[in-house]
């Protein structure tokens, strides 16, 4: 007890207390100043009244919000079936690019080409080309559905990125781990499955979380080929009511999901760097 009391009174703690108080004062003052400026100055602009009416319209927001949430369920659905497929395909591509035996050379080339192509083409282009192109082949229902081909376009694009992250994860496992596993008589395949991959996957969880967040947003790109998800629904309301507020509503809904997810990813990232230090 006496010990802690003594500790509180060190020069260092006194100094740090002073510093802390100072920074709280500075941070509070500057935040208040900025907020006041925004609240006071922005409404003084000549176009504010119009903007407020068409972007921040309370009644329109209240009226359209439930329907937007409803439409957002489709985003969630597309996300939920795409994400596991991306994880699997991404991992397979990463492994394909990692094989060394000459017989598997075509597989390696295929993996490399896959990542090059789908990382090199804008997502929206892939969505258009696959989402419009493949159903154009005149496939029977349900195989002409834009839901399916739109999702596949997302899956292909994201798998390419996810594969590269997995590959970086595999490279991040120290070679001494491989050596130790090999020295025990494990085969290359067993070393990969039992020793390298579990560590690699763990190392890239935070990065993959960021990919999930990006995917959640990019699901909206499917609106361009048909499915009435939240962005499309907001567009419909915009046309009906001649008001942009539904877009703001959609943005709010996205943020409700992505902000907690981003925070969680940051938390994971921070925890990992703490563990490594």
């Amino acid at each position: 007890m006496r010990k802690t009391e003594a500790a509180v009174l060190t020069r260092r703690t006194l100094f740090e207390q002073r510093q802390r108080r100072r920074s709280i004062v500075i941070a509070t003052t500057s935040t208040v100043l900025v907020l006041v400026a925004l609240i006071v100055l922005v409404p003084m602009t000549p176009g504010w009244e119009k903007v407020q009416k068409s972007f921040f319209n309370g009644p329109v927001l209240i009226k359209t919000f439930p329907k937007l949430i409803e439409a957002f369920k489709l985003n969630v659905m597309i996300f939920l079936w795409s994400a596991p497929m991306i994880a699997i395909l991404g991992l397979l591509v990463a492994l394909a690019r990692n094989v060394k035996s000459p017989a598997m050379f075509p597989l390696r080339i295929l993996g490399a080409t896959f990542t090059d192509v789908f990382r090199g083409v804008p997502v929206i282009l892939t969505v258009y080309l696959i989402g419009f192109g493949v159903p154009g082949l005149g496939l029977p229902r349900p195989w002409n559905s834009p839901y399916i081909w739109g999702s596949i376009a997302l899956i292909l694009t994201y798998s390419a990125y996810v594969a590269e992250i997995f590959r970086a994860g595999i490279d991040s496992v120290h070679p001494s781990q491989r050596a130790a596993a090999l020295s025990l008589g494990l085969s290359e395949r067993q070393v990969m499955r039992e020793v390298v991959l579990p560590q690699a996957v763990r190392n890239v969880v935070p990065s993959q979380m960021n990919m999930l967040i990006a995917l959640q947003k990019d699901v909206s790109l499917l609106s361009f080929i048909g499915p009435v998800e939240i962005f499309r629904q907001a567009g419909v309301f915009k046309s009906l009511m001649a008001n942009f507020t539904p877009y703001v509503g959609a943005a709010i809904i996205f943020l409700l999901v992505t902000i907690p997810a981003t925070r969680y990813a940051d938390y994971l990232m921070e925890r990992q760097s703490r563990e490594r230090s």
Partner: protein
Amino acid sequence: MAKLKLRNVVKRFGDVTVCNGVNLDVNDGQMVCLIGASGAGKSTLLRCINLLEHTEDGEIFLDGEDIAVPGLNPQAARKKIGMVFQNFNLFPHMTALENVMLAPRRVYKKSRTDIEVEVVSLFNRFGLADRMANYPDQLSGGQQQRVAIIRALAMRPEVILFDEITSALDPQLVGEVLDVLLQLKKQGMTMVLATHEMQFARQAADKICFLKDGEIIEEGPPDQIFDAPTQAATKEFLMRVRK
């Protein structure tokens, strides 16, 4: 017949020759210590014996059979030759017990229950029975290294290679690991050590090999090497480490 026999083993990394025609005989139950300055090729030689490195030339005989034939699957030889590393190299995502059980289960397809008795008795013998459920980062360096030795032993190897296994340990933890080596020697394990522990090498080894620039330039029983080295380089090295 020698358990392990190296003939003219050559290893290069690019233009650098790390092992320059090494000859070595290790008899059954012998403990052989490789000594020499850092960069002399001790570790690389051990890695070559375990086939973790491809050798450029030369033969490595295990029970009279050449295991270093290019293109040969190294797995068969590695099952018989265990290895323990300087930095332990335990698998961080597995408990101590899982680290030890992994290879017997995957390589010999044994079930957990088949090997449990043997593995647990190994942990008991080396005083780690209460640490089996711990992850490597919850163990001290000495404990980790002992788990690594148990992991190698669980494959019932005929030869074990030790690559400077006490170099990464705090001085007060070195003893507990060296004690394990003495125990193994008593049981007749064939062992090759790369080591900087001169005191230990002198007391425990059956044969000392002094390496310089990728060659064994002098070898013999400990007393001869430490008390009456014939080569100038050996004398100089021993002078420096004794200071």
